[in-house]
């Protein structure tokens, strides 16, 4: 099977194109650094199947951050048959820089000149024919977001696979460097390599670490490079300059952009949202309004339905089971465990959906990059990098992609801190826990309570970040450079599709991991045989009773709460599932809510919420930490330290609250 790779600058539309080519639904967002992993999909065309690879965005092959390393590695070692270089037509000059590097490698490359709609509205005039001729590369105009130009692009890419090796005019780097390249090539001769000697020579002069490493065994070349001494760094920048000159000559005759651009709508919006006084308040308001609306739409308008269905289902099921003379143990499993436990989680689907809807809009408009911008000052004061904030917002959806997105941080120290504080950002799976307790105690102020919980998560994350940057990860954090993409109107379809994707994932988890947890705990609950299921005398109850004293100072030292917290480490939704299970099934309506009202005081409820917000992240997050840090030590650290923070926080809330007489 032939492989076609999508390569380009961040936010140029690679993933949008990937989705259009393969019919997949990979995550698209309007900020640089959405994709941080390699993703593969299939394209069927004329009876053949092609393997399409979507890569993280990169500005060059220099690979400064982890996500760029992924892109670089695939371009260099993945041997794609054709590379589709996605170029943002509104910013051709900078985008073509990467193209020149692809040309140097002798890659078979075609250009998808994307965002043609925006180029047009900005009055950028591009002579595509000429551009293509000057470059010696086919250029196909596309509007990936509207699926325009896709067919011609596929046609061209496929044609290209079978074409013989392609030759571009070599870029001239000036007399001195060209001579150096020539000399190194001669020294390289004979040694067989998978890359053109020309490219190796350029990369060696550029000081590319990987290439230099490979050349270590070649004495002659090494000697030669050492003899260059001071000139080397001069050459390095000169090469960059020359590439830009080359680009300048090419676009001079093929691209015409109006010089003095007027103030765009994006500029006008930015003036307000990045304003030095308004920036942070606006961010807080956006968050607050999102939660308030989530609550109003998700719970008041939609929430009742699902709850009603589950109640009916429970009633109907228990009716049937009773007429069938089902044994008690099975009854307790199906009604209390499955309907009560899994059902308690599923009840919250509408709210989860609305939350994801808002997060999706936030990601698609372009505001994300601005949020990082306005928070940079605060972040910097805490010794963190502004981009950390993007990974934090992504963490609101789920901490797994949140942690993955820390790959875009160039500096190892910045990245580790961002990774370690991400789980304090409250994810969608913790959402049902808050909602149960809000319905039980704070039903009138749901939006505010949610806002406070999420806000507390951010504050704890920032404080821990500060502590880490003062202790474990000292040193300067790297410079802040980020592209601010133009605001774009989110496409309703893609927001809905993304939302559905996440809701579906949530439902699948309810049907798999939550179901398994519920089943395991149910088994524990019917032993020793003959005990009342879910009673304190059962094995489950006994285990819980042993753990419970740990949580007594926090006000929820019951065996039920303890078991639910431990189940929550498998997946956070399990906390609610277990509570739903042990406090009786949904068959009798709002039993869970009223059971919680009896089992917790309002103060204990707050302290429990603090605990669930902060304590040990779920298994999936821990697995991601293991994968990203490649260290068991950090993974254990990640499991333990949030537990301590959560416990201390909960105890603090409960004890101070008690003293104040709450």
């Amino acid at each position, binding site marked *: 099977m032939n492989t076609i790779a999508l390569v380009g600058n961040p936010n140029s539309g690679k993933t949008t194109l990937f989705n259009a080519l393969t019919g997949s639904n990979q995550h698209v967002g309007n900020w640089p650094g959405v994709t941080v992993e390699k993703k593969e999909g299939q394209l069927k065309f004329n009876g053949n199947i092609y393997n399409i690879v979507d890569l993280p965005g990169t*500005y*060059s092959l*220099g690979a*400064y951050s982890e996500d760029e390393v992924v892109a670089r590695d695939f371009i260099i070692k993945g041997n794609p048959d054709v590379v589709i270089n996605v170029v943002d037509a*509104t*910013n051709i*000059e*900078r985008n073509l*820089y990467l193209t020149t590097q692809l040309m140097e490698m002798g890659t078979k490359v075609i250009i998808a000149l994307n965002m043609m709609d925006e180029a047009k509205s*900005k009055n*950028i005039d591009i002579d595509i024919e000429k551009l293509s001729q000057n470059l010696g590369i086919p250029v196909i105009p596309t509007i990936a977001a509207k699926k325009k130009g896709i067919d011609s692009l596929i046609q061209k890419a496929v044609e290209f696979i079978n074409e013989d090796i392609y030759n571009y005019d070599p870029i001239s780097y000036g007399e001195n460097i060209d001579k150096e390249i020539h000399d190194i090539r001669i020294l390289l001769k004979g040694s067989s390599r998978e890359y053109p000697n020309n490219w190796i020579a350029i990369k060696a002069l550029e000081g590319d670490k990987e290439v230099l490493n490979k050349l270590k065994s070649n004495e002659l070349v090494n000697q030669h490079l050492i003899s260059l001494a001071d000139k080397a*760094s001069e050459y*390095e*920048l000169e090469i*960059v*300059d020359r590439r*830009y000159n080359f680009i300048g000559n090419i676009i001079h005759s093929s691209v015409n*952009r109006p010089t003095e*651009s007027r103030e765009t709508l*994006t*500029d006008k919006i*930015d*003036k307000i949202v*990045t304003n*030095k006084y308004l920036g942070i308040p606006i961010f807080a308001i956006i968050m607050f309004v999102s939660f308030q609306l989530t609550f109003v739409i998700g719970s008041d308008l939609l929430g009742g339905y699902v709850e009603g269905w589950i109640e009916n289902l429970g009633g109907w099921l228990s009716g049937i089971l009773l007429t069938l003379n089902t044994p008690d143990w099975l009854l307790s499993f199906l009604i209390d465990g499955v309907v009560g436990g899994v059902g308690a989680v599923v009840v919250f689907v509408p709210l989860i959906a609305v939350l994801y809807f808002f997060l999706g809009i936030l990601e698609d408009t372009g505001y994300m*990059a601005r949020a990082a*911008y*306005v928070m*940079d*000052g605060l972040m910097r004061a805490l010794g963190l990098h*502004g981009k950390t904030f993007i990974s934090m917002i992504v963490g609101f959806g789920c901490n797994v992609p949140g942690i993955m997105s820390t790959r875009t941080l160039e500096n190892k120290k910045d990245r580790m801190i961002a990774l370690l504080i991400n789980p304090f950002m409250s994810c969608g799976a913790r959402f049902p826990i808050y909602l149960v307790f809000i319905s039980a105690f704070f039903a009138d102020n749901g939006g505010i309570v949610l806002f406070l919980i999420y806000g507390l998560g951010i504050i704890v994350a920032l404080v821990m970040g500060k502590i880490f940057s003062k202790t474990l990860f000292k040193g300067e954090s790297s*410079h*802040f*450079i*980020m*592209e*601010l*993409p*133009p605001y774009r109107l989110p496409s309703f379809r893609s927001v809905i599709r993304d939302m559905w994707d996440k809701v579906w994932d949530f439902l699948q988890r309810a049907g798999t991991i939550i179901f398994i947890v519920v089943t395991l705990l149910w088994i524990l609950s019917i032993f020793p045989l003959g005990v009342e299921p879910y009673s304190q005398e059962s094995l489950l109850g006994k285990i819980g009773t042993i753990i419970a004293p740990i949580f007594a100072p926090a006000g929820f030292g019951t065996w039920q709460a303890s078991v639910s917290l431990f189940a929550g480490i498998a997946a956070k939704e399990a906390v609610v599932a277990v509570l739903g299970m042990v406090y009786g099934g949904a068959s009798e309506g709002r039993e869970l809510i009223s059971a919680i009202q009896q089992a917790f005081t309002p103060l204990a409820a707050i302290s429990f919420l603090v605990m669930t917000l902060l304590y040990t992240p779920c298994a999936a997050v821990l697995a991601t930490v293991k994968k990203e840090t490649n260290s068991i030590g950090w993974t254990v650290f990640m499991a333990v330290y949030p537990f301590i923070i959560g416990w201390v926080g909960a105890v603090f809330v409960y004890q101070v609250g008690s003293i104040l007489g709450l």
Partner: protein
Amino acid sequence: MEDKAMVFLKRNEFGKIKEINGCEDVKKRLFELGLRRGAGVRILKNDIGPLILNVSGCKMALGRGLARNIILSI
């Protein structure tokens, strides 16, 4: 013609990048991001926090530390 560090430019001022001070790595990164010698830069915001600028049609936020090392000719 006058040379000034980017960080001293006010909103709406325009200049061409003359040179960038600092270590080679940072320099190269900036070049590759489009902040190369000769590129025209318009300042869109410069009060507190990172600057916001327009470099050949692309909007970028740039930390003050970096902006101090970028010399523009105006």
